């Protein structure tokens, strides 16, 4: 049930939060150069972008965002600008990597191709219904173990591939404050499917997905007032990932986590100044998770768009009164669905 993914079916979407993209693109050149790249410039960034030449690359700026989404209340600034890239892409698959993340090396010192690994993850089946203790059974040198039901060995399409980060791990502000010098040096050589019904934080730093199958569920729902450009200040990807996992589970698809790694530099700043905002985020997650763990999407919803449309109503109903952030998220989800349909984002 593995699929063949052609280079022409992939867009690489990069959110430009800082003007100089050249070092990033040069580092990724061996792995990006075959693909079409969409760069979305943070609408709050004034300076011109510096882009290394020699890529098949299209830049979208504030004016493009306004032309398409002017009447929408969705906030496409900061890390959320990448979602505009998902909206305008016409490819089946999208790979998105943060600007501060570079190719990682494996334990033997070899520079790894995160793009190829994401493509492999998406091309091979996921196995969400039963946990394989040797992790990805489709990887060379591995298989399903004794006791794994044969009827489940075909797997299901993988629609989301969540990669990881060496060096600066994706910690929240509180954890980074407590452990400012901790670096992730552990290379875990595994890809695995996150089981159906299990929720996880799908960091947007290093991610790939099947845009046609799941695209609408990767959405800019949560944007805090005064949110900055640092990852620990945002939860847009976490919210998006929870929606995406629920939708994927409902539609019978799979989500993988593990390889590939990227080497994340971070920006060296300390989160101490942001800690006063953390209590809001802490509470938000604690309030949201029980909702996502118990939400049931109806059988009528047979596409990601349908699922998100239903989910937004349930967010409004169950969480809207808990916090204005959730009420805004529900509105953003509705608008996202409308935008997705109106720009024809479902087309290839």
């Amino acid at each position, binding site marked *: 049930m593995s699929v063949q993914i052609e280079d022409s079916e992939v867009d690489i979407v990069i959110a430009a939060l800082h003007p100089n993209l050249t070092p990033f693109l040069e580092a990724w050149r061996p792995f990006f150069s075959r693909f079409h790249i969409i760069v979305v410039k943070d609408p709050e960034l004034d300076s011109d972008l510096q882009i290394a030449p020699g890529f098949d690359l299209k830049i979208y700026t504030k004016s493009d965002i306004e032309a398409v989404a002017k009447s929408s209340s969705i906030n496409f600034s900061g890390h959320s600008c990448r979602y505009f890239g998902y909206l305008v892409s016409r490819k089946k698959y999208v790979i998105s990597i943060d600007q501060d993340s570079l190719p990682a090396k494996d334990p033997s010192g070899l520079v790894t191709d995160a793009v190829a690994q994401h493509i492999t993850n998406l091309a091979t089946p996921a196995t969400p219904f039963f946990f394989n203790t040797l992790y990805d059974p489709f990887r060379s040198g591995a298989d399903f173990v004794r006791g794994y039901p044969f009827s489940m060995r075909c797997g299901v399409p993988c629609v989301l591939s*969540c990669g990881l980060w060496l060096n600066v791990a994706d910690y929240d502000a509180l954890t980074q404050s407590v452990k400012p010098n901790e670096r992730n040096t552990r290379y875990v*050589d595994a890809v695995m499917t996150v089981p159906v019904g299990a929720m996880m934080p799908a960091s947007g730093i290093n991610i790939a997905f099947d845009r046609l199958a799941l695209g609408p569920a990767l959405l800019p729902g949560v944007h805090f007032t005064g949110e900055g450009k640092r990852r620990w200040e945002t939860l847009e990807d976490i919210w998006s990932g929870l929606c995406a996992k629920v939708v994927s589970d409902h539609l019978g698809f799979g989500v993988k986590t593990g390889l590939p790694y990227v080497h994340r530099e971070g920006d060296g700043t300390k989160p101490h100044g942001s800690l006063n905002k953390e209590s809001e985020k802490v509470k938000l997650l604690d309030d949201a998770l029980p909702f996502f763990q118990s939400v049931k999407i109806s059988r009528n919803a047979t596409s990601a768009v349908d699922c998100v449309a239903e989910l937004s109503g349930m967010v409004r109903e169950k969480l809207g009164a808990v916090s204005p952030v959730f009420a805004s998220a529900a509105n953003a989800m509705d608008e996202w669905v409308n935008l997705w349909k109106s720009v024809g984002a479902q087309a290839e």
Partner: protein
Amino acid sequence: MSVPITPALKDELDIVIPTIRNLDFLEMWRPFFQQYHLIIVQDGDPTKTINVPEGFDYELYNRNDINRILGPKASCISFKDSACRCFGYMVSKKKYIYTIDDDCFVAKDPTGKDINALEQHIKNLLCPSTPNFFNTLYDPYREGADFVRGYPFSMREGIKTAVSHGLWLNIPDYDAPTQMVKPRERNSRYVDAVMTIPKGTLFPMCGMNLAFDRELIGPAMYFGLMGDGQPIGRYDDMWAGWCVKVICDHLGLGVKTGLPYIWHSKASNPFVNLRKEYKGIFWQEEIIPFFQAVVLPKDCTTVQKCYLYLSEQVKEKLGPIDPYFTKLADAMVTWIDAWDQINSTGTGAKLPNGAANGKA
């Protein structure tokens, strides 16, 4: 930064080993096992003498001992199958059990260092589990790792760990069909992670390299009816694993998988395995949905109550598949009876085993 020292737990942990051949493999494990008490369950011909290397403190039980200690209840313990190891769990007086097969040796990590599998299992059991939300950096309590952004703070305390499921380098634990299709495949990939299996997710629990908290989950670790006189084999640990996971999920206990690795040296005969597994391959297609759907009632607040409820459900829902399941359900009840009997008296089953009882 100092690395915390893992307690040895030498007076709190028993190592349970089923064997029919010999225990030469213990020589390699000596540096790691010698300070622990061993419970050896001798399968097969009770007249055969099992040679235990010098210097180990152990108690050994053969079939005659099992029959003598349990009387009619001995019918629940498998004969001529390593499933008999669960007798060792029953008679142990310790809080923790580590069970290992006699063809499993010390593995090396990627740096070439010998892996102290027992120490890693102890770490796994003493550290909380996190089944309610998946941490993408795996075990958050491991040195050098933590919970990632987006992980709810209310869940960061974790819950108690009941089971630590280790893995195997070299000969992987494949079923017979896979063994036959890939006879030369060897597991050479060292995945440097321990992780909690999410709540609600079942997994295939292999008994080759397994540790558990006997006080938390022991009565659910029944390895079923396998081997001589039974229509199925090589599903003992699988059966225990499905029961254990359902009960752990219900009682709020965690199950971990991943490190440590051992080196599995011997590939069993795939033709023999196919005969043993044959019915299981078909039956598991119905068994898995059964375990996925079963809901334990709220008043099942102990492992025994959960297990007895499961046995009723097995009889009702799986009994129609084959009379074996009715027999198995009855054996599950017998097991709990025997467990409670052995573990309530305080004197237990410790018996003078004559020449077979070794001392350090």
